[in-house]
């Protein structure tokens, strides 16, 4: 009896039987700012979930793995989490390239995927027939819908007509480029340049020279945080006169707002710490309490919402059975820092969370990211032209 009790205590102490969620994130490499932000969001959600009793009466455990922003590293890390660590569910995922790479093993093992990133359409194609794929982040066509709305406004009110496009040569930048160009043209814009670049190379000299020759009103770039400062530097050095430098990296470089070169640079975000809704304010307060700081990276609240909703679905399902958890997660209808979250079909997948209406456009103004569009959310007038 004594031995039995001791074994029971030891098992309880070792966390045996706990529900395990594997979290694959780019904690290093090109997408690391998003990955690090997401890890903080997961940490905050985990604290709250376990303080409230965990899931199924057991503590929730997270197993983090770094995909290094590289598909070649993501696949073995994913397989290790699923087969060696034997996680019950997978969460995380930022980069489209790594998400495509793991789509094969995910389908092979029938892994439950509560996925926060990966906006490129090839990811949607890859997971279209996967029954347990819940995608929280809007697909790139939703992102583009929001961007086009903003640019149309600039066309009407600021006479912006010519767009130069710079895009990274991975799936994130390249996948929808033809559709992007076609949509801009259809909306009455002149696409005066479409140029690829290698993310992280920092070599934007020739690209900016070409843009200068093309005389755009807007330079629209699709890349990662590592590209923001080198591009802004080169624009300034070559004195490229623009109405707007607009970027859509998943995250921005740490401390970018303190650099003068960030002045007036605009971008897209699902959320800003200044967002006034109740859930956003609660998230900011809890985040500040835990980490002593505030973040503007939307991957932090996105990861937070991701784990909270997954935990709620597991509890509602009463087991870790994938089909039952999927059925419960599909019923999600909760307020979040981004607005209400429900899952509805996208063009190809069954469970899509946030869509075009959740995006905000901001500008770096006076050391901060300030919402400038949609106008009803604008906290300051946008600066167009310099």
């Amino acid at each position, binding site marked *: 009896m004594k031995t039995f009790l001791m074994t029971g205590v030891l098992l309880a102490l070792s966390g045996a039987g706990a529900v395990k969620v594997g979290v694959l994130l780019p904690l*290093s490499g090109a997408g690391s*700012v998003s990955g*690090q932000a997401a890890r903080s969001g997961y940490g905050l959600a985990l604290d709250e979930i376990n303080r409230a009793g965990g899931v199924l009466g057991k503590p929730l455990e997270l197993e983090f793995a770094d995909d290094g922003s590289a598909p070649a590293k993501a696949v073995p890390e994913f397989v290790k989490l699923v087969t060696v660590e034997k996680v019950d569910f997978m969460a995380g995922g930022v980069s489209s390239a790594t998400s495509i790479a793991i789509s094969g093993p995910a389908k092979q093992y029938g892994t439950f995927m509560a996925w926060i990133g990966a906006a490129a359409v090839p990811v949607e194609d890859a997971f279209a027939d996967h029954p347990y794929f819940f995608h929280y982040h809007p697909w790139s066509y939703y992102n583009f819908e929001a961007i086009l709305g903003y640019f149309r406004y600039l066309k009407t009110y600021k006479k912006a007509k010519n767009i130069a496009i710079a895009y990274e040569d991975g799936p994130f930048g390249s996948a929808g480029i033809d559709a992007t160009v076609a949509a801009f043209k259809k909306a009455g814009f002149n696409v005066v340049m479409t140029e690829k670049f290698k993310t*992280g190379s920092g070599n934007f000299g*020739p*690209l900016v*020279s070409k843009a200068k020759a093309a005389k755009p009103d807007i330079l629209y770039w699709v890349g990662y945080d590592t590209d923001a400062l080198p591009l802004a530097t080169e624009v300034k050095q*070559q004195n490229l006169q623009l109405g707007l430098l607009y970027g859509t990296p998943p995250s921005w470089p740490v*401390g970018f707002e303190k650099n*003068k070169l960030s002045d007036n640079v605009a971008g897209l975000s699902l959320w800003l710490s200044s967002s006034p809704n109740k859930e956003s304010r609660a998230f900011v307060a809890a985040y500040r309490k835990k980490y002593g700081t505030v973040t503007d990276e939307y991957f932090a609240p996105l990861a937070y919402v991701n784990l909270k909703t997954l935990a709620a679905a597991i509890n509602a399902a009463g087991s870790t059975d994938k089909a039952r958890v999927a059925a419960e997660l599909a019923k999600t209808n909760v307020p979040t820092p981004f607005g209400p979250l429900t899952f509805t079909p996208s063009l190809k997948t069954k469970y899509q969370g946030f869509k075009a209406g959740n995006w905000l456009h901001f500008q770096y103004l006076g050391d901060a990211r300030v919402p400038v569009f949609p106008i009803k959310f604008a906290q300051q007038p946008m600066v167009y032209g310099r």
Partner: protein
Amino acid sequence: MELFAQTLVNGLLQSGLYALVASGLALAVGVVGIVNFAHGEYLMIGAFLAWAGSALLGLDPLLSLPVIAVAVYGVGALTYRVSIRHVLLAPELNQMLLTFGLGILLQNLALMLLGGNTRTVSTPYQASSLQLGELSVGGPKALAFGLAAALLGALYGVLYRTTLGRQMRAVAQNRRGAQLIGINVDRVYLIAFSVSCALAAVAGVLVSVLLFASPTVGLVFALKAFAIIVMAGLGNLTGVLWASVLLGVSEALVQTYVPGGGGWSDAVFFLMIFGTLVLRSFRGAR
């Protein structure tokens, strides 16, 4: 014509950074005879030190450059004493495995200590440029080019005008012969390897101003440095500058004039390595 001229300027400016990184690698290969796969990681250390000086102490990266160079010289000396010297007589594969492992170790140490985030510095001259008519010459890149030329010149001067330089060249030509005439080979190797690391760190400081500091920032430049020293000829310091210019300008031309060139520019150095090796083997066969 204006775009063409600006493309040449862009390529030339980019080549300064390449030359700085490659000069250190050329020294390690030429004198010590070791292919240092961890060279990019010494650049990364320099970049992080510049960022730390700027973020924590408010030091301008360029002002802290000499201190960083000396500090990384020390790190290089320590690396040499602890690891490199023990494999100098070992088969080349062992040397490569050691430096490769060293690179992974340093990169992961940086990840553990500083995380994977990219760090940027902010300086008043970051976006400075000189306008020559319609041409723009970026200030920090021009500085990198000038510094590379000056350092390569100084290195050349040391190698050909000083006793230490003559000792280095003697060691590079024939280790045993140099030992027989009383040269302290171990000391020469130590100095050459440490200077090589310090040169990488100098490049790292400029990278922190031009781009960012991150655990993986060295890899891109180390790969290009390998291409440059292959083009220049292993250990040929004088060839480093022209090979860097050739690489920088070729990349710029590809980026500007080849459709989708931005995606192809990283293939340029592979093509150059390939082309150089084929050319060399063809010449050798004759």
